[in-house]
């Protein structure tokens, strides 16, 4: 299975999420701007980048490009049909993420966890996968 985080608004948020998923950026959100800007093609207005593998050895990709959100899954389906890679791509949109969550991640601030994930002693995010990029 290949995981693709995509942002149809053209924001490189998908790159940040893919970087966290593959361990290039820490999950607790404590990273510096330099680490963020060293991610591949982060300054590009659109890109489709392979980021590495996650803890379950699944390939992780990031795609950001200003496009109709309906068309991106269909283009992937077209790719699957052409490449005989049926069912290989698992698409995870990040463009529905609220702006504050995006800013928290991009700015290196702690990410609020889902109910039950918050560390009760510190009141901060416990370090497990945040809700919006958790796999179903």
């Amino acid at each position: 299975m290949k995981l693709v985080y995509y942002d149809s608004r053209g924001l490189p948020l998908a790159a940040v999420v893919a970087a966290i998923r593959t361990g290039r950026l820490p999950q607790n959100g404590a990273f510096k701007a330099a680490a963020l800007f060293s991610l591949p093609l982060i300054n590009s207005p659109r890109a489709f980048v392979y980021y590495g593998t996650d803890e379950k050895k699944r390939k992780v990709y990031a795609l950001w490009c200003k496009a109709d959100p309906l068309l991106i899954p269909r283009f992937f389906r077209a790719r699957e049909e052409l490449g005989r890679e049926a069912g290989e791509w698992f698409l995870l949109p990040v463009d529905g993420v609220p702006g504050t969550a995006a800013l928290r991640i991009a700015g290196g601030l702690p990410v609020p966890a889902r109910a039950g994930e918050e560390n009760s002693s510190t009141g901060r995010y416990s370090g497990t996968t945040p809700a919006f990029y958790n796999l179903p």
Partner: protein
Amino acid sequence: MEIIYHCFGGTHSSVLAAALHTGMISHRRLPAGDRLLRLPFLDTQDGSNHGQLYFFGTDEGGNRIFILGRRRDAGALTLILNGATGEEPVREILLVSAMPCVPLLLKIGGFISRRLQFTRLGRPLVLAGLRRGYPCLRELVYRVKKEVAEG
């Protein structure tokens, strides 16, 4: 090789280009309107078909020809089908935009026929637009075939 002709709606210029490529219509002369309208997918698709890949036929070299409507998102289509940066493409794919050959008349006719569903009013404009875009599409297909043949 897979060759994909794409345009806004995947129902006019890309269909004519694919028909020219597969030899379904002549390179010498554009057929009459009623014969054009019998081409598969011509002026039949709507918004719900956008982004879906349709097999059109095979050319003399065994290349498979497809059509696709991608609205204004040619950039996203190219990114996704060409593959991720740093990875080899899965198959040899040639993406050809038919949009540079679309005259204003065809855009207006297509909008009236497909978007507004006024087929009776839109189709004559579509046919006139296809007639106007035909020389450009013929040239486009010629260049694509040459490129494919040269590898």
